């Protein structure tokens, strides 16, 4: 279990984390979601005692991380896939980490096998691909068979087989009663893996709820309607709490009432409807709804003329 209380980190004039409080419970996968620069990594680094909180506190299994007698058995963390000396082999890296806790060599071989690193274990970690680096980071996190796992973007750079493996692994560990806290910017991944979500934006917690609740709660259900008399149906449906958008000549998106009510209105008025599809809102929709005011680094599309200019300059 991870408990953060009014946890804050301020770098000079910039507030990275602005006093967040949350609890990550055992026996489930808790996802940590937020835009770039929202404070996810900083929060995780404070949990691991790498960064000192400006104020507030955070405990893991009841104690600050550094106060545990056997930290690697309490928490395994993958915070940065490149937290490895580039000149050392994966095997020796794990062996050196294991030595601090007297973890037997057999366990080092075990995590190497679990993460599929057998073939490259004796090679220098500096030559690893991003995916291999992630596997090594996960191997290091699993080394002490910890009660709590903290994984920052674990599927980053993994191949589909690796993504599936991580998903199964974290689900398995959560079912074993362990605490799993993982961040990801891949919302589809979160929707499939996490039970509970903590959404952070600009250093503040925006949502802290089960995944299903977040998906259901943020956006009203929409229904896609195709009809050959769109303007007529549109005016019939419009009313209190109902909005109708017409995107194509014969297509309406209706929010506020369900498919059955729409069908009843159409039947009563003799309007032909040839498609009626409920639009399930995804976690992605929910996420954008939640974070639309919190995104720090908006991306902008470059305008046409700017794109064209190199070509003209070349002439």
């Amino acid at each position, binding site marked *: 279990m991870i408990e953060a209380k009014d946890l804050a980190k301020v770098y000079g004039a910039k507030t990275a984390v602005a006093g967040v409080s949350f609890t990550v419970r055992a026996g489930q996968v808790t996802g940590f979601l937020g835009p770039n620069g929202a404070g996810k990594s900083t929060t995780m680094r404070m949990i691991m005692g790498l960064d000192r909180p400006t104020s507030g506190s955070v405990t893991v299994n009841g104690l600050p991380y550094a106060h545990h007698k*056997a*930290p690697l058995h309490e928490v395994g963390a993958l915070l940065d896939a490149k937290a490895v000396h580039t000149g050392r082999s994966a095997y020796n*890296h794990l062996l050196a980490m294991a030595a601090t806790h007297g973890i037997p060599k057999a366990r080092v071989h075990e995590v190497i096998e*679990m993460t599929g690193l057998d073939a490259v274990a004796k090679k220098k970690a500096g030559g690893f691909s991003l*995916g291999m680096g992630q*596997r090594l980071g996960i191997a290091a996190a699993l080394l002490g068979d910890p009660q709590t796992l903290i994984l920052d973007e674990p599927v980053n750079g993994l191949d589909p087989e690796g993504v599936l493996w991580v998903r199964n692994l974290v689900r*398995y560990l959560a079912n074993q009663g362990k605490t799993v806290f993982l961040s990801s910017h891949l919302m589809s991944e979160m929707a499939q893996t996490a039970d509970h979500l903590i959404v952070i934006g600009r250093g503040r917690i925006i949502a802290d709820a089960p995944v299903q609740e977040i998906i259901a709660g943020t956006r009203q259900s929409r229904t896609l309607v195709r009809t050959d008399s769109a303007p007529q149906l549109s005016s019939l449906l419009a009313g209190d709490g109902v909005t109708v958008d017409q995107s194509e000549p014969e297509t309406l998106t209706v929010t506020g009432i369900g498919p059955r009510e729409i069908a009843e209105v159409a039947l009563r008025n003799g309007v032909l409807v040839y498609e009626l599809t409920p639009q399930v809102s995804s976690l992605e929709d929910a996420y954008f709804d939640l974070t639309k005011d919190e995104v720090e680094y908006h991306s902008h599309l470059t305008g046409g003329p700017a794109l064209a200019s190199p070509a003209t300059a070349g002439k």
Partner: protein
Amino acid sequence: MSTHTSTAAAPARSSAGSHGVTFSGVLRSEWIKLWSLMSTRILLLLTLVAIVGVGALAVLIRYTFLDEMIRNARDQGQTLTPEMMEQTFPPGSGFDLYNLPNAGLQIGILVLGSLAVLFMSSEYATGMIRSTMNAVPRRTPAFVAKAIILAVISYVITTIAGVATFLIAMPVFQSIGFDLDWSTDGVLYSIFTGGLYVAGVALIGLSLGTLLRNSAGGITVLVGIFFVLSIAASFLTLIPGDFWKYVPQYIPSDAGGRFLSIGHTDGVIDPWQGGLIFLGYVLLFLIPAMIVLKKRDV
């Protein structure tokens, strides 16, 4: 490349053990870290060769010089024996042979000091430091373990090199009549203190690597302290007035150098005082480095 992964049953807790962090475990971890880098192994071997090599060269130069003096004297019909030379020239003027084991010491300072900087700074450069701090979140034990390993390795290498250099020097000088062997005053002392001095330099290097977190910066400052500062300080002696003549002996390299020599000279700090001053410098770097390491975000 095959990347087959198994979702094998998570192993029982027993397979990972359940020991806590122990200092001996941290020592073993740092030992594995040092020796598992090919660059370190090559560097340490080359250091040994270099110290003995430079030492042998220095032995050759001094032998040629002394041999020449004896020949010249003979050509002029005089006899100049090693005993006469030892009595004619004051201690510290270059005719003492007891310090021959440390003839190649400067190379040892340069390479082992740099290795010590890298032992910490490379962890910052590669991000390894975060793995280290995850495994040893109290941080200080990891630093102390690194310090012990560096001090011991520096001491052992310097001592082996010192013995080897002296084994080369002894027959060379005996061949022209010098009474030089293991029982000569100061020989064993300089072998013993040479190792301590280089171990101290290594600890300063480790501290610089920790404080600056940068390999190039750390090595530059180390060279500045042990090579440039000594040259700069020698200019102070050109300033009129007696006071400035006594200042350079207090800088780290000169105080350390004095620690390696024997005998009392008026107006110069005694060897044990030089040793204490040098120890003070080591602590001056070591303690702030430990405090900063403990407090700073990584």
